[in-house]
């Protein structure tokens, strides 16, 4: 699972959808792998407005990247190729291959195996 994806998922449990503590889910025991992808500066610029920066900072911290700026790069900062390259590397190239995602609201754990997170709920939670 890519780091960007953690910005677009939350807990599958219905009651958690409206709870601020369910987002973002928290990574535990994450094993990372870098996967090289074509660098598309335009794509990063376009998608950035849809990123919840606070949530991304939480995720990045948990994965061992504590150096994210406090606020989202905007305006002229987006003309800087290195800024965009760093974001490309973090958001798209950094893959969580193994580990767990834990909901901060209900504590349910989702398992990540071979790069895929499984969000199916056991029948008692459906």
């Amino acid at each position, binding site marked *: *699972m*890519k780091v*960007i*994806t953690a910005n*677009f*998922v*939350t*807990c*599958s*449990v*219905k009651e958690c*959808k*409206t709870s601020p503590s369910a*987002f973002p889910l928290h990574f535990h025991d994450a094993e990372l792998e870098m996967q090289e*992808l*074509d660098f*598309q500066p*335009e*794509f990063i*610029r*376009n*998608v*950035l*407005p*849809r990123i919840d920066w606070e949530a991304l900072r939480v995720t990045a911290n948990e994965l061992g990247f504590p150096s994210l700026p406090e606020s989202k790069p905007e305006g002229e900062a987006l003309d800087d190729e290195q800024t965009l390259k760093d974001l490309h590397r973090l958001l*798209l190239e950094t893959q969580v291959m193994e580990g767990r995602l834990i909901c901060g609201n209900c504590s349910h754990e*989702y398992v990540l195996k*071979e*790069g*895929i*997170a*499984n*969000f*199916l*709920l056991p*029948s008692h939670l*459906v």
Partner: protein
Amino acid sequence: MESAEIYEQRNVHEVYQQIAEHFSSTRYKPWPIVERFLKELQPGSVGLDVGCGNGKYLTVNKDVFIVASDRSENLARIALQHQPHSTVVADIMDLPHRNAFFDFAISIAVVHHISTPARRVQAIAEILRTIRCGSETESGGKILIYAWALEQKNSRRGWDKGDPQDIMVPWIRKAKSTDDEPQTFNRYYHLYEEGELERDIDQAGGHVLESGYEKDNWWVIATPKFLS
């Protein structure tokens, strides 16, 4: 009587796990309506492909980001190869996504596998829940739902108005090697009659923007209703 969930587990989910590889090798050409819908999106849009199968729609528009999901882990693994997108295993009835956030969602040939009218409406409502709502001044996010039609008398199946709508359709998995036999798997389908998909979407809280018929399927583009 067994529950709808268990019925679907046996007659849909387990079948796709078994036929994933062969099924995927037969699904590569995007349907024109789906292609148009994806190509018209604004660059930087973020959306969902619910029931993505092998992920054949992930490559249509390289300027948008899609979180794809499928109930079958075997299909989700096949879809994972389509960069720069992401694939997760999830159930359409309980999607792991925030409320009212996404710019678009597609769900192509998926809701026809759900075995009761109430669950079909609930599945569409679950997709609509994730979509950004519009207002007086701004249009909301859009979904495209595509489902198999009852009215397809010119197809090789030949069904038409008046035929049963809840049926089992065989999938014949070709032999994997010379000493293997072809195997038949039956999948459950609900064939949609004219107007039915629009009714389900309305009941699920969607406002139909456009609808039509393409290649033996009914399709609808809709947006979440908003209170003015």
